[in-house]
């Protein structure tokens, strides 16, 4: 199942866009590779060992031969360096590479010394909304230079009806592993808070977004939310009785500011998050954070 051939057509425009930003490392253009080698590397990924196999780059690897993170790497200490790089610089990236065993991804990134970002934490809960029975749809959006190596970048939390107090608790875990070639497009976490009533109807209670912190360490974040207001007073009255106010058509507007001037919104509650940011190899590129 050589999917990499089809993936190649999607890759080229993306690769050009990635190099437009402030580049952290320049990858050489991919060299064509035999199909056999990639399928062999794919099958070895499928066998996937449970032991951690991180091979540090040897001094024989020349620094200018940094690899594209989308290239699949299957390597061992026994294979000569030239063959290793040829197999790695293959053409496309496939879904298997993203969903594959994370130690191979880590090994890949370790070998190329690309800058990595780990976002690990929880969406704790929400407070300050008119009703308590809430859930949250969340997603993480990053720029073109960022590649998600492992983790789910969107999801939906449980619905919590708190018995005591005002805060709805979700404790939803977030665990993301990004690698990047540039600083533009630092990941943003966007949220939609919804209310589910006892009949099972869902109503939008707020949109919000927050940038993932850029300094390493543990951060306690509060994300404010807003809700679009219905236009005429008749709609607002209907919304009070029946529910179902206006919603955004696409979630892009939550985290972008380009078309916001048309909106009229009202502020709603806050969402609490606890995120830990772990950076790797950013100092090698001179990035201070």
């Amino acid at each position, binding site marked *: 199942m050589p999917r990499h051939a089809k993936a190649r057509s999607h890759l080229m425009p993306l690769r050009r866009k990635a190099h437009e930003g402030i580049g952290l490392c320049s990858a050489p253009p991919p060299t064509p590779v035999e199909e056999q080698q990639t399928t062999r590397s794919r099958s070895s990924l499928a066998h996937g060992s449970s032991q951690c196999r991180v091979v540090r780059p040897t001094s024989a690897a020349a620094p200018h031969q940094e690899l594209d993170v989308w290239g699949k790497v299957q390597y061992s200490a026994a294979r000569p360096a030239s063959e290793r790089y040829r197999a790695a610089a293959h053409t496309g990236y496939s879904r298997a590479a993203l969903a594959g065993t994370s130690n191979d991804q880590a090994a890949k990134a370790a070998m190329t010394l690309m800058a990595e970002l780990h976002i690990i934490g929880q969406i704790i809960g929400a407070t300050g909304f008119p009703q308590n029975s809430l859930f949250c749809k969340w997603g993480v959006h990053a720029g073109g230079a960022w590649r998600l190596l492992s983790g789910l970048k969107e999801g939906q939390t449980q619905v919590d009806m708190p018995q005591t107090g005002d805060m709805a608790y979700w404790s939803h875990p977030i*665990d993301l592993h990004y690698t990047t070639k540039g600083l533009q497009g630092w990941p943003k976490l966007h949220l939609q808070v919804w209310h589910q009533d006892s009949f099972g109807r869902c109503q939008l209670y707020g949109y919000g977004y927050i940038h993932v912190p850029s300094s390493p360490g543990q951060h306690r974040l509060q994300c404010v939310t807003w809700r679009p207001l219905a236009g005429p007073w008749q709609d607002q009255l209907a919304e009070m009785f029946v529910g179902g106010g206006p919603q955004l058509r696409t979630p892009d507007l939550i985290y972008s500011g380009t078309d916001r001037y048309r909106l009229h919104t009202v502020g709603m509650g806050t969402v609490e998050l606890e995120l830990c940011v772990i950076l790797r190899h950013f100092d090698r590129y001179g990035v201070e954070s």
Partner: protein
Amino acid sequence: MTSNNPSVFLLMVNGQIEAADFPEYDDLYCKYCFVYGHDWAPTSGLEEGISQITSKGRGSQSLVWNFPLDITFKSTNPFGWPQIVVSVYGPDTFGNDVVRGYGAVHIPFTPGKHTKTIPMFVPESTSRLQKFTSWLMGRLPEFTDPKVVAQGEGREVTRVRSQGFVTLQFNIVTKDMKKLGYETTSEHSAATGLTRTSQQL
């Protein structure tokens, strides 16, 4: 044995499940387990445990366990950072053992002392009749595998009710994370000597 080019880093966790705060329930015990990714492996310590049964003392509303945690993990990758899943059980009016709360939190990431207070929630019955029947039979809804609480997938179909808190204390030591290039603390805060000793959820 120190190596100049380490390939794994270690995370050592010492701590305790200190106490719980459940206003409506008494005589509770807790179970804990650790959930971690594929790249992680525990090298020593206990992955699971059951505590004693504790009651609220006269005049005090807190349920104290003081239950020790001691585990060390090794890994090559922070993805899949271990989480501790705590499940609290207690008797209902008829004496059956029912679940009173599930909660999960990531093990703290930076070396030092941390205190975490996590909310505990139980799954809700889908209808009022089911709620009454389960109360009568002593079989309240519970998760078949408590590890679901530590995952993000599949949670969107669950409805829960949060009804208490558990306080945990951790002392964290990491080894070789800096050598592998991972920065978990900002240089700015390290230079000014700020330490995080208390985290409240």
